[in-house]
């Protein structure tokens, strides 16, 4: 395994960093937070259309760039660093990722090219379980109705559902699959009849979440989109990758917390000295850097591992790699955001300064696909197996 970044990858990182420094600075983030949709449509247009970021990891056969998880993780790192407000994670890291790993051929043909072109926004629910989308905890029920399906139930937390074109929703079927209830994945257009989407007012306003309720939503047969054979393994792989991308985003956020703190302490004076000259402040910044570089190693390593791994492979080893990166990311991001507030002193807990934006995101993203504790328990189970 070689962790050397290729020229392509370095270029992507560089371009993302410079684009986002311009378009997603503190003022832009605050303006997006206050907007009705939660993101700047013009910026989204450039990201999805001109820059083609949505195509990064989509396989070439579906019109993507096929650059794989390393390049996508590098993008996410920069997005996290700049707190980008956009439906990118939901469309690319949740939906397109799931389609590529676990979707049937028809659904991939149907959706992936348009996602890659930046013409379509999709989303999926985020659940709090560390056991992925296959653990049967879905609260949606799908019953056969004629040749098609009828869906009922509630998804408590679906990111960007209010602006997505399609929702991919896992639902429990009234069929058994081994010891478990079988699960199917269904593509539901946002304007489907019987679908109610209510915005949630979250503390972290850099992302929008919605409560989605389905009351007898009827679907055509082809709207069930999971692959007949690869469904379970694909779901596990895509869940692992989603964790990885979130970890990359958290890495970027943690780095920003350190950067803000180093910059602040370099200029702010107390007792006639810069804060940065106090050894305790230095050591705490150094401790942040240690944790961040450790996380960076974890994220880059897991991404390289994911790039080397192949579809046919059992997903367990990849799941552990990504669980590792994810558990570390949740803790590191929160730690760094906490330290950023603390080391900013009085201004650290004001609305006006930026540490609070990272702090809220750090807390909100700490349990997206299971808490760090739950992921570690999963790792322990594997180690002791």
């Amino acid at each position, binding site marked *: 395994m070689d962790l050397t970044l290729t020229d392509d990858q370095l270029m992507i990182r560089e371009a993302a960093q410079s684009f986002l420094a311009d378009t997603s600075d503190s003022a832009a983030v605050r303006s997006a937070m206050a907007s009705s949709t939660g993101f700047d449509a013009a910026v989204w247009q450039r990201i999805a259309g001109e820059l083609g970021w949505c195509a990064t990891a989509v396989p070439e056969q579906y019109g993507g760039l096929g650059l794989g998880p390393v390049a996508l993780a590098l993008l996410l790192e920069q997005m996290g660093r700049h707190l980008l407000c956009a439906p990118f994670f939901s469309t690319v890291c949740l939906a397109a990722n799931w389609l590529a790993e676990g979707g049937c051929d028809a659904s991939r043909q149907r959706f992936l090219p348009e996602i890659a072109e930046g013409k379509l926004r999709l989303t999926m629910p985020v659940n*709090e379980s560390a056991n992925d989308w296959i653990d049967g905890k879905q609260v949606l029920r799908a019953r056969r109705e004629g040749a098609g399906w009828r869906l009922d139930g509630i998804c408590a937390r679906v990111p960007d559902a209010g602006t997505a074109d399609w929702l991919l929703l896992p639902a429990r079927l009234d069929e058994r699959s081994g010891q478990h209830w079988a699960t199917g994945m269904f593509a539901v257009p946002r304007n489907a009849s019987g679908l109610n989407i209510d915005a949630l007012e979250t503390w972290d306003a850099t992302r929008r979440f919605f409560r989605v309720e389905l009351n007898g939503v009827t679907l055509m047969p082809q709207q069930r989109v999971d692959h007949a054979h690869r469904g379970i393994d694909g779901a596990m792989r895509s869940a692992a990758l989603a964790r990885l991308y979130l970890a990359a985003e958290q890495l970027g956020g943690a780095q920003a917390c350190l950067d803000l703190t180093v910059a602040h302490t370099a200029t702010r004076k*107390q007792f006639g000295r810069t804060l940065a000259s106090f050894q*305790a402040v230095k050591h705490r910044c150094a401790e942040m850097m240690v944790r961040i570089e450790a996380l960076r190693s974890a994220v880059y390593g897991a991404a390289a591992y994911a790039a080397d791994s192949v579809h046919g492979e059992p997903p367990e080893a990849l799941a552990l790699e990504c669980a590792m990166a994810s558990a570390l990311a949740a803790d590191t991001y929160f730690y760094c955001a906490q330290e950023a507030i603390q080391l900013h002193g009085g201004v650290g807990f004001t609305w006006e300064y930026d540490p609070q934006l990272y*702090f809220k995101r750090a807390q909100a993203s700490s349990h997206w696909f299971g808490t760090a*504790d739950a992921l570690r328990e999963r790792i322990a189970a594997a180690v002791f197996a």
Partner: protein
Amino acid sequence: MNDAAIMDVPQRSAEDRFRAEIADWMRAHLSGRFAELRHRGGPGDEEAFPELRKEWERELAAGGWTCVGWPREHGGRGLSITQQVIFHEEYARAGGPGRMGHIGEGLIGPALIRFGSAAQQKRFLPEIVAGAEFWAQGYSEPNAGSDLANVQTRCTQQPDGRWQVQGQKIWTSLAQESDWIFVLARSEPGSKGNKGLSFLLLPLRQPGISIWPIRQLGGGAEFNEVFFDGALADNEHMVGAPGEGWKVAMGLLEAERGVSTLGQQMHFSHELERIVRVAKQNGRERDAQIRQRIAHAWIGLRVMRYNALRMLAGDATSLGREALIYKYYWSNWHRDLGKLAMDVLGAEGDVRSDEPDIRALQQLFFFSRADTIYAGTNEIQLNLIAERGLGMPREPRGDSPMTTNNKP
């Protein structure tokens, strides 16, 4: 153990009657229109119901329950320390709201008793006891951070003897709701550090003062910036002589002697009970890691209680080791409690809620971020502990040559 028992201790003494008297009084009076004040107005919630809470202060005053620790000759109730402990515990146990009068009762009042002139005492103390005048404090300044002696605000004596104040104070809580403010200002031009400062009392509602709320990360605005542009203080409203401001200011900070911390702890206990209740409801009580953290929190509450009792048992004239660690200990404990609360809430915690338990715990999470920063950051506290508690060398100032054996 039921929830309410988390802070319970066996009561065997004759003090039980006193305890019952307060509990009865609270039950009878914290009701009716005051009922909605229960458990409100604490840290992170200081903006709640300001007018009603001022009325509540007057209700307390009518019952003789303000300034309970002050000497009788100054209008206080003259309670013993043990009785004060009981009062604060029962007040908090009953859900008594955050005290609008706490700066008057806990800070400036005791400072005036110690340093004020007879005229100042006569003018101000009765109003504090009666719940009629409320106070704000003006210590910190922008860009000074934890360096309290870095005072840029100036005061200049006018021909008519009054002092004109020019400058800016920050982190002033409840400034909009207060009538008076005390200010540390530089009266000797060119002086540095803690020399040449004076301590002034000013009416807040005057043309030369403007107040700007500081929006905090949780959305609230308990703190303010206060701008002084030609604000005036009467000459007889300087406490101590010109140049003695630092002595008064430090004496004022030492007045805080641990009794009211027991009330604070009842509030903390109440927060832990909320967390326990939520964890039982949503099933996180089964999570082994959450259980460990709950136990840590419970242990910390116990430690704070016994620590406060050590402070009360200690020599009242010197700052004991237990008093030296107290701010650092409680503020970090409380910040951790906020994180625990949020982790127990899980995804539910991310959405703004009006459900009382959830709302209170979210406020706890966000507001407790300030705990380790205001009134001496963690970093300042650790310096103090090392220097005053362990006799280690002082941090050198940047503007003086490095000295390594500069013991305090």
